[in-house]
Protein backbone atom coordinates (compact mmCIF):
# COMPACT_ATOMS: atom_id res chain seq x y z
CA UNK A 1 0.00 0.00 0.00
CA UNK A 2 1.07 3.54 -0.55
CA UNK A 3 -0.34 6.61 1.15
CA UNK A 4 -0.15 10.14 -0.14
CA UNK A 5 -0.78 13.11 2.14
CA UNK A 6 -0.83 15.65 -0.65
CA UNK A 7 -3.68 13.90 -2.45
CA UNK A 8 -6.23 15.69 -0.26
CA UNK A 9 -7.97 12.36 0.23
CA UNK A 10 -8.51 11.51 3.92
CA UNK A 11 -6.28 8.69 5.07
CA UNK A 12 -9.14 6.34 6.01
CA UNK A 13 -10.45 6.66 2.44
CA UNK A 14 -7.03 5.84 1.08
CA UNK A 15 -6.96 2.72 3.26
CA UNK A 16 -10.42 1.75 1.97
CA UNK A 17 -9.50 2.48 -1.65
CA UNK A 18 -6.36 0.40 -1.52
CA UNK A 19 -8.10 -2.57 0.07
CA UNK A 20 -10.89 -2.12 -2.49
CA UNK A 21 -8.31 -2.09 -5.25
CA UNK A 22 -6.85 -5.36 -3.94
CA UNK A 23 -10.36 -6.86 -4.09
CA UNK A 24 -10.87 -5.64 -7.68
CA UNK A 25 -7.46 -7.06 -8.65
CA UNK A 26 -8.39 -10.40 -7.05
CA UNK A 27 -5.53 -10.27 -4.52
CA UNK A 28 -8.16 -10.90 -1.87
CA UNK A 29 -10.79 -13.24 -3.31
CA UNK A 30 -14.36 -13.54 -2.22
CA UNK A 31 -14.51 -15.40 1.10
CA UNK A 32 -10.85 -14.56 1.90
CA UNK A 33 -9.90 -13.09 5.23
CA UNK A 34 -8.25 -9.67 4.97
CA UNK A 35 -5.48 -8.58 7.38
CA UNK A 36 -6.65 -7.39 10.80
CA UNK A 37 -6.81 -3.75 11.82
CA UNK A 38 -3.74 -4.26 14.01
CA UNK A 39 -1.79 -5.96 11.23
CA UNK A 40 -2.46 -3.10 8.81
CA UNK A 41 -1.89 -0.53 11.55
CA UNK A 42 1.56 -1.78 12.54
CA UNK A 43 2.68 -2.70 9.02
CA UNK A 44 1.93 0.76 7.61
CA UNK A 45 2.28 2.73 10.85
CA UNK A 46 -1.28 4.04 10.72
CA UNK A 47 -3.43 4.65 13.78
CA UNK A 48 -5.81 1.69 14.30
CA UNK A 49 -8.82 4.04 14.56
CA UNK A 50 -8.06 5.29 11.03
CA UNK A 51 -7.66 1.76 9.68
CA UNK A 52 -10.92 0.70 11.33
CA UNK A 53 -12.73 3.68 9.80
CA UNK A 54 -11.47 2.61 6.36
CA UNK A 55 -12.53 -1.01 6.94
CA UNK A 56 -15.97 0.09 8.12
CA UNK A 57 -16.38 2.06 4.90
CA UNK A 58 -15.84 -1.18 2.98
CA UNK A 59 -18.37 -2.93 5.23
CA UNK A 60 -20.87 -0.16 4.39
CA UNK A 61 -20.14 -0.66 0.69
CA UNK A 62 -20.80 -4.37 1.12
CA UNK A 63 -17.26 -5.43 0.20
CA UNK A 64 -16.26 -6.73 3.62
CA UNK A 65 -18.19 -8.48 6.37
CA UNK A 66 -17.37 -8.88 10.03
CA UNK A 67 -17.45 -12.40 11.40
CA UNK A 68 -17.57 -12.24 15.16
CA UNK A 69 -14.39 -13.39 16.80
CA UNK A 70 -12.79 -14.27 13.47
CA UNK A 71 -12.14 -11.02 11.64
CA UNK A 72 -13.02 -9.34 8.35
CA UNK A 73 -13.81 -11.31 5.20
CA UNK A 74 -14.43 -10.40 1.56
CA UNK A 75 -18.13 -10.77 0.78
CA UNK A 76 -19.60 -12.79 -2.09
CA UNK A 77 -19.94 -10.59 -5.15
CA UNK A 78 -17.48 -8.05 -3.73
CA UNK A 79 -15.30 -7.92 -6.83
CA UNK A 80 -18.26 -7.11 -9.09
CA UNK A 81 -19.57 -4.49 -6.67
CA UNK A 82 -16.14 -2.88 -6.23
CA UNK A 83 -15.66 -2.69 -9.99
CA UNK A 84 -19.12 -1.18 -10.49
CA UNK A 85 -18.47 1.41 -7.78
CA UNK A 86 -15.17 2.41 -9.37
CA UNK A 87 -16.79 2.67 -12.79
CA UNK A 88 -19.50 4.88 -11.35
CA UNK A 89 -17.00 7.10 -9.55
CA UNK A 90 -14.91 7.42 -12.70
CA UNK A 91 -17.88 8.50 -14.82
CA UNK A 92 -19.41 10.76 -12.17
CA UNK A 93 -16.25 12.45 -10.87
CA UNK A 94 -13.08 11.88 -12.89
CA UNK A 95 -14.58 12.42 -16.35
CA UNK A 96 -16.33 15.73 -15.55
CA UNK A 97 -13.12 17.02 -13.92
CA UNK A 98 -11.14 15.98 -16.97
CA UNK A 99 -13.61 17.75 -19.31
CA UNK A 100 -13.56 20.93 -17.16
CA UNK A 101 -9.80 21.04 -17.33
CA UNK A 102 -9.85 20.54 -21.11
CA UNK A 103 -12.38 23.38 -21.47
CA UNK A 104 -10.26 25.64 -19.30
CA UNK A 105 -7.29 24.97 -21.57
CA UNK A 106 -9.36 25.67 -24.69
CA UNK A 107 -9.34 22.15 -26.10
CA UNK A 108 -12.34 21.61 -28.37
CA UNK A 109 -14.66 18.63 -27.94
CA UNK A 110 -13.83 16.93 -31.27
CA UNK A 111 -10.11 17.51 -30.73
CA UNK A 112 -10.36 15.78 -27.33
CA UNK A 113 -12.56 13.00 -28.76
CA UNK A 114 -9.96 12.32 -31.45
CA UNK A 115 -7.21 12.00 -28.83
CA UNK A 116 -9.36 9.63 -26.79
CA UNK A 117 -10.15 7.48 -29.81
CA UNK A 118 -6.47 7.34 -30.69
CA UNK A 119 -5.63 6.41 -27.08
CA UNK A 120 -8.09 3.50 -27.22
CA UNK A 121 -6.49 2.14 -30.42
CA UNK A 122 -2.92 2.09 -29.09
Amino acid at each position, binding site marked *: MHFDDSSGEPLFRQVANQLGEAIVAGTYREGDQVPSTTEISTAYRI*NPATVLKGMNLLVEQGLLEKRRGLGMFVTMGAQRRAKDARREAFLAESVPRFIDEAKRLGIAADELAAIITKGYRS
Partner: protein
Amino acid sequence: MSLTITNLTKTYGTGANTGARPALDRVSLALQPAIYGLFGRNGAGKSTLMSLIANRLLPTSGTVMLDGTNVRDNEAAQGRIYLANETRPFLWPVRLGAIFRREERYYGGFDHGFAARMLAAFGIEPGKAYGNLSLGQRHIVQLVAALCVPVDVLLLDEPVLGLDAANRELFYRFLLETYASRPRVIVVSTHLIDEIAHVIERAIILDHGRVADEFAAESVGSRATVLVGDSNAVGYFVDEAGLSVIARESMGKLSGITVHGAIAADDLPEGIVASGLGLQDYVIRSTGGAADGASETESASSSRGAANGTVNKTTNATARDAACDVAAATDEKE
Protein backbone atom coordinates in the same frame (compact mmCIF):
# COMPACT_ATOMS: atom_id res chain seq x y z
CA MET B 1 -10.54 6.16 31.82
CA SER B 2 -9.95 9.87 31.37
CA LEU B 3 -7.36 12.49 32.13
CA THR B 4 -8.85 15.92 32.64
CA ILE B 5 -6.60 18.96 32.69
CA THR B 6 -8.21 22.20 33.84
CA ASN B 7 -6.72 25.69 33.64
CA LEU B 8 -3.26 24.29 34.23
CA THR B 9 -0.72 27.09 34.66
CA LYS B 10 2.96 27.00 35.47
CA THR B 11 5.15 30.03 35.99
CA TYR B 12 8.80 29.34 36.67
CA GLY B 13 10.58 31.37 39.31
CA THR B 14 9.18 33.43 42.14
CA GLY B 15 9.87 36.69 43.93
CA ALA B 16 11.69 39.08 41.63
CA ASN B 17 10.57 37.00 38.72
CA THR B 18 6.84 37.32 39.41
CA GLY B 19 5.00 38.65 36.45
CA ALA B 20 7.12 36.42 34.24
CA ARG B 21 5.26 34.91 31.35
CA PRO B 22 3.85 31.49 32.31
CA ALA B 23 5.45 28.50 30.59
CA LEU B 24 1.99 26.97 30.59
CA ASP B 25 -1.01 29.25 30.56
CA ARG B 26 -4.49 28.02 31.55
CA VAL B 27 -4.30 24.80 29.57
CA SER B 28 -7.48 22.71 29.55
CA LEU B 29 -7.66 19.33 27.84
CA ALA B 30 -9.75 16.18 28.19
CA LEU B 31 -7.80 13.08 27.15
CA GLN B 32 -9.36 9.68 26.47
CA PRO B 33 -7.54 6.48 25.48
CA ALA B 34 -5.86 7.37 22.17
CA ILE B 35 -2.43 8.23 20.81
CA TYR B 36 -1.99 12.01 20.98
CA GLY B 37 0.69 14.01 19.21
CA LEU B 38 1.85 17.03 21.21
CA PHE B 39 3.36 19.67 18.97
CA GLY B 40 4.74 23.16 19.35
CA ARG B 41 7.92 25.12 18.94
CA ASN B 42 10.86 24.91 21.32
CA GLY B 43 9.75 26.42 24.61
CA ALA B 44 6.03 26.15 23.84
CA GLY B 45 5.41 24.25 27.09
CA LYS B 46 5.27 20.61 25.93
CA SER B 47 7.73 19.25 28.49
CA THR B 48 6.27 21.42 31.23
CA LEU B 49 2.81 19.99 30.54
CA MET B 50 4.08 16.40 30.69
CA SER B 51 6.09 17.04 33.86
CA LEU B 52 3.06 18.54 35.58
CA ILE B 53 0.91 15.52 34.74
CA ALA B 54 3.63 13.21 36.08
CA ASN B 55 4.09 15.24 39.27
CA ARG B 56 7.71 16.06 38.45
CA LEU B 57 6.71 19.72 38.69
CA LEU B 58 4.01 21.37 40.75
CA PRO B 59 1.51 23.64 39.02
CA THR B 60 1.18 27.32 39.86
CA SER B 61 -2.55 26.80 39.50
CA GLY B 62 -5.02 24.44 37.87
CA THR B 63 -5.57 20.70 38.21
CA VAL B 64 -4.86 17.37 36.55
CA MET B 65 -7.49 14.74 37.37
CA LEU B 66 -7.20 11.04 36.52
CA ASP B 67 -10.65 9.43 36.64
CA GLY B 68 -11.85 12.16 38.97
CA THR B 69 -8.96 12.20 41.45
CA ASN B 70 -6.26 14.85 41.56
CA VAL B 71 -2.89 13.37 40.56
CA ARG B 72 -0.88 15.97 42.49
CA ASP B 73 1.27 14.26 45.16
CA ASN B 74 -1.01 11.25 44.76
CA GLU B 75 1.09 8.10 44.75
CA ALA B 76 -1.75 5.78 43.71
CA ALA B 77 -2.53 7.97 40.69
CA GLN B 78 1.14 8.44 39.84
CA GLY B 79 1.56 4.65 39.77
CA ARG B 80 -0.77 4.74 36.75
CA ILE B 81 1.22 7.47 34.98
CA TYR B 82 4.63 7.03 33.32
CA LEU B 83 6.78 9.80 31.89
CA ALA B 84 9.75 8.89 29.71
CA ASN B 85 12.03 11.83 29.06
CA GLU B 86 15.74 12.56 29.03
CA THR B 87 15.79 13.06 32.79
CA ARG B 88 14.83 9.52 33.65
CA PRO B 89 18.17 7.83 34.14
CA PHE B 90 18.56 4.25 35.20
CA LEU B 91 21.58 3.27 37.30
CA TRP B 92 24.52 2.58 35.03
CA PRO B 93 25.95 -0.65 36.50
CA VAL B 94 22.53 -2.30 36.57
CA ARG B 95 21.65 -4.97 34.01
CA LEU B 96 18.59 -4.45 31.84
CA GLY B 97 16.71 -7.35 33.43
CA ALA B 98 17.12 -5.79 36.87
CA ILE B 99 16.00 -2.38 35.56
CA PHE B 100 12.86 -3.95 34.15
CA ARG B 101 12.14 -5.85 37.37
CA ARG B 102 12.46 -2.60 39.32
CA GLU B 103 9.88 -0.98 37.02
CA GLU B 104 7.70 -4.07 37.46
CA ARG B 105 7.75 -3.68 41.25
CA TYR B 106 6.87 0.00 41.12
CA TYR B 107 4.19 -0.12 38.43
CA GLY B 108 2.73 -3.51 39.37
CA GLY B 109 3.55 -5.35 36.16
CA PHE B 110 5.86 -5.54 33.16
CA ASP B 111 5.52 -7.23 29.78
CA HIS B 112 8.85 -9.08 29.74
CA GLY B 113 8.02 -10.95 26.54
CA PHE B 114 7.33 -7.73 24.66
CA ALA B 115 10.51 -6.17 26.09
CA ALA B 116 12.61 -9.12 24.91
CA ARG B 117 11.09 -8.93 21.44
CA MET B 118 11.74 -5.18 21.20
CA LEU B 119 15.35 -5.47 22.43
CA ALA B 120 15.97 -8.18 19.83
CA ALA B 121 14.44 -6.04 17.07
CA PHE B 122 16.60 -3.07 18.10
CA GLY B 123 19.68 -5.30 18.33
CA ILE B 124 20.34 -4.76 22.03
CA GLU B 125 21.70 -7.64 24.12
CA PRO B 126 19.37 -8.17 27.07
CA GLY B 127 22.14 -9.29 29.45
CA LYS B 128 24.08 -6.03 29.22
CA ALA B 129 24.47 -3.41 31.91
CA TYR B 130 22.73 -0.14 31.13
CA GLY B 131 25.99 1.84 31.30
CA ASN B 132 27.67 -0.35 28.68
CA LEU B 133 25.17 0.65 26.01
CA SER B 134 25.60 3.48 23.53
CA LEU B 135 23.68 6.72 24.02
CA GLY B 136 21.10 5.73 21.40
CA GLN B 137 20.71 2.25 22.89
CA ARG B 138 20.20 3.66 26.40
CA HIS B 139 17.49 5.85 24.97
CA ILE B 140 15.83 2.82 23.35
CA VAL B 141 15.93 0.92 26.67
CA GLN B 142 14.02 3.81 28.28
CA LEU B 143 11.39 3.54 25.55
CA VAL B 144 11.19 -0.24 25.91
CA ALA B 145 10.57 0.14 29.64
CA ALA B 146 7.93 2.81 28.98
CA LEU B 147 6.01 0.59 26.54
CA CYS B 148 6.04 -2.42 28.90
CA VAL B 149 4.67 -0.98 32.15
CA PRO B 150 0.90 -1.42 32.63
CA VAL B 151 0.10 2.28 33.16
CA ASP B 152 -3.03 4.08 31.99
CA VAL B 153 -1.25 7.29 30.98
CA LEU B 154 2.00 7.09 29.04
CA LEU B 155 3.86 10.34 28.37
CA LEU B 156 6.72 10.16 25.86
CA ASP B 157 8.71 13.38 25.64
CA GLU B 158 10.58 13.40 22.32
CA PRO B 159 10.87 9.60 22.17
CA VAL B 160 12.54 9.49 18.75
CA LEU B 161 15.19 12.12 19.42
CA GLY B 162 18.54 10.55 18.54
CA LEU B 163 17.06 7.44 16.93
CA ASP B 164 18.08 6.62 13.37
CA ALA B 165 15.36 6.43 10.71
CA ALA B 166 15.04 2.64 10.78
CA ASN B 167 14.79 2.56 14.57
CA ARG B 168 12.20 5.34 14.52
CA GLU B 169 10.09 3.25 12.17
CA LEU B 170 10.44 0.25 14.49
CA PHE B 171 9.46 2.37 17.46
CA TYR B 172 6.25 3.60 15.74
CA ARG B 173 5.33 -0.03 14.96
CA PHE B 174 5.83 -1.14 18.56
CA LEU B 175 3.94 1.89 19.82
CA LEU B 176 0.93 0.97 17.66
CA GLU B 177 1.20 -2.68 18.63
CA THR B 178 1.16 -1.99 22.37
CA TYR B 179 -1.62 0.56 21.96
CA ALA B 180 -3.75 -1.94 20.02
CA SER B 181 -3.23 -4.63 22.64
CA ARG B 182 -4.19 -2.23 25.44
CA PRO B 183 -5.62 1.17 24.49
CA ARG B 184 -4.56 3.89 26.94
CA VAL B 185 -3.78 7.59 26.96
CA ILE B 186 -0.47 7.96 25.14
CA VAL B 187 0.97 11.43 24.57
CA VAL B 188 3.97 11.78 22.26
CA SER B 189 5.80 15.06 21.82
CA THR B 190 8.01 15.32 18.76
CA HIS B 191 9.36 17.72 16.17
CA LEU B 192 9.35 15.04 13.46
CA ILE B 193 5.69 15.76 12.79
CA ASP B 194 5.26 14.30 9.31
CA GLU B 195 6.65 10.96 10.47
CA ILE B 196 4.07 10.56 13.18
CA ALA B 197 1.12 12.17 11.37
CA HIS B 198 -0.50 8.81 10.57
CA VAL B 199 0.42 7.17 13.86
CA ILE B 200 -1.50 9.55 16.11
CA GLU B 201 -5.26 9.77 16.46
CA ARG B 202 -5.42 13.31 17.80
CA ALA B 203 -3.12 16.31 17.68
CA ILE B 204 -2.57 18.98 20.32
CA ILE B 205 -0.75 22.15 19.30
CA LEU B 206 0.78 24.31 22.02
CA ASP B 207 1.83 27.86 21.26
CA HIS B 208 3.41 30.09 23.90
CA GLY B 209 2.02 27.92 26.70
CA ARG B 210 -1.52 27.84 25.35
CA VAL B 211 -3.50 25.27 23.41
CA ALA B 212 -3.62 26.65 19.87
CA ASP B 213 -5.67 23.70 18.58
CA GLU B 214 -6.73 20.15 19.45
CA PHE B 215 -8.26 17.97 16.74
CA ALA B 216 -8.53 14.56 15.08
CA ALA B 217 -5.25 14.22 13.18
CA GLU B 218 -7.10 12.65 10.28
CA SER B 219 -9.13 15.80 9.74
CA VAL B 220 -6.11 18.09 9.46
CA GLY B 221 -6.85 18.63 5.76
CA SER B 222 -10.02 20.51 6.71
CA ARG B 223 -8.56 22.51 9.65
CA ALA B 224 -7.15 25.10 7.31
CA THR B 225 -7.16 26.08 3.65
CA VAL B 226 -4.42 27.77 1.67
CA LEU B 227 -5.85 30.13 -0.94
CA VAL B 228 -3.45 30.95 -3.73
CA GLY B 229 -3.96 33.44 -6.51
CA ASP B 230 -3.64 37.09 -7.51
CA SER B 231 -2.81 39.08 -4.34
CA ASN B 232 -5.70 41.52 -4.75
CA ALA B 233 -8.23 38.84 -5.61
CA VAL B 234 -7.24 36.55 -2.73
CA GLY B 235 -7.13 39.44 -0.23
CA TYR B 236 -10.52 40.70 -1.38
CA PHE B 237 -12.09 37.25 -1.18
CA VAL B 238 -10.74 36.62 2.33
CA ASP B 239 -12.00 40.01 3.58
CA GLU B 240 -15.41 39.68 1.90
CA ALA B 241 -16.01 36.20 3.24
CA GLY B 242 -14.81 37.28 6.69
CA LEU B 243 -12.36 34.38 6.88
CA SER B 244 -10.07 34.00 9.86
CA VAL B 245 -6.46 34.31 8.71
CA ILE B 246 -3.75 32.04 10.11
CA ALA B 247 -0.87 33.00 7.83
CA ARG B 248 0.02 35.11 4.82
CA GLU B 249 2.77 34.61 2.29
CA SER B 250 3.36 36.39 -0.94
CA MET B 251 5.68 36.37 -3.87
CA GLY B 252 5.31 39.23 -6.32
CA LYS B 253 1.69 39.42 -7.45
CA LEU B 254 0.84 35.99 -6.07
CA SER B 255 -0.44 35.57 -2.55
CA GLY B 256 -1.07 32.54 -0.41
CA ILE B 257 -3.36 33.13 2.54
CA THR B 258 -3.97 30.35 5.03
CA VAL B 259 -7.37 30.56 6.70
CA HIS B 260 -9.19 28.49 9.31
CA GLY B 261 -11.54 25.79 8.12
CA ALA B 262 -12.40 24.14 4.84
CA ILE B 263 -13.82 26.06 1.89
CA ALA B 264 -16.20 24.47 -0.59
CA ALA B 265 -14.90 24.54 -4.15
CA ASP B 266 -18.19 26.11 -5.29
CA ASP B 267 -17.58 29.15 -3.09
CA LEU B 268 -14.26 29.94 -4.72
CA PRO B 269 -14.02 32.70 -7.32
CA GLU B 270 -12.28 31.95 -10.61
CA GLY B 271 -8.50 32.15 -10.40
CA ILE B 272 -8.14 31.20 -6.74
CA VAL B 273 -6.88 27.73 -5.98
CA ALA B 274 -7.56 26.16 -2.60
CA SER B 275 -5.69 23.32 -0.95
CA GLY B 276 -5.48 21.74 2.48
CA LEU B 277 -2.38 21.44 4.62
CA GLY B 278 -0.48 18.45 5.92
CA LEU B 279 -0.02 18.19 9.67
CA GLN B 280 3.50 19.61 9.77
CA ASP B 281 2.62 22.62 7.61
CA TYR B 282 -0.47 23.26 9.71
CA VAL B 283 1.55 23.12 12.94
CA ILE B 284 4.18 25.50 11.54
CA ARG B 285 1.57 28.00 10.38
CA SER B 286 -0.48 27.87 13.56
CA THR B 287 2.56 28.46 15.75
CA GLY B 288 3.72 31.61 14.00
CA GLY B 289 6.40 29.90 11.96
CA ALA B 290 5.78 31.06 8.46
CA ALA B 291 3.36 33.86 8.89
CA ASP B 292 1.90 36.87 10.57
CA GLY B 293 -1.82 37.38 10.91
CA ALA B 294 -3.68 35.71 13.73
CA SER B 295 -0.77 33.96 15.37
CA GLU B 296 2.08 35.73 17.03
CA THR B 297 5.43 36.08 15.33
CA GLU B 298 7.16 37.41 18.39
CA SER B 299 9.69 34.64 18.67
CA ALA B 300 10.45 34.69 14.98
CA SER B 301 10.83 38.44 14.58
CA SER B 302 12.56 39.16 17.87
CA SER B 303 15.13 36.47 17.30
CA ARG B 304 15.97 38.24 14.06
CA GLY B 305 16.07 41.63 15.77
CA ALA B 306 13.52 42.83 13.26
CA ALA B 307 10.74 44.06 15.53
CA ASN B 308 9.73 46.78 13.13
CA GLY B 309 6.21 47.69 14.04
CA THR B 310 3.08 45.58 14.04
CA VAL B 311 2.96 41.96 13.09
CA ASN B 312 0.98 42.79 10.00
CA LYS B 313 3.89 44.80 8.69
CA THR B 314 6.24 41.87 8.93
CA THR B 315 7.74 41.70 5.49
CA ASN B 316 7.14 38.69 3.39
CA ALA B 317 10.85 38.07 3.27
CA THR B 318 10.85 37.86 7.06
CA ALA B 319 7.95 35.46 7.01
CA ARG B 320 9.73 33.20 4.57
CA ASP B 321 12.98 33.35 6.52
CA ALA B 322 11.10 32.51 9.67
CA ALA B 323 9.82 29.42 7.90
CA CYS B 324 13.39 28.51 7.05
CA ASP B 325 14.38 29.04 10.69
CA VAL B 326 11.71 26.57 11.72
CA ALA B 327 12.98 24.08 9.18
CA ALA B 328 16.55 24.61 10.39
CA ALA B 329 15.49 24.23 14.01
CA THR B 330 13.78 20.97 13.14
CA ASP B 331 16.89 19.75 11.36
CA GLU B 332 19.06 20.53 14.36
CA LYS B 333 16.80 18.37 16.44
CA GLU B 334 17.38 15.34 14.25
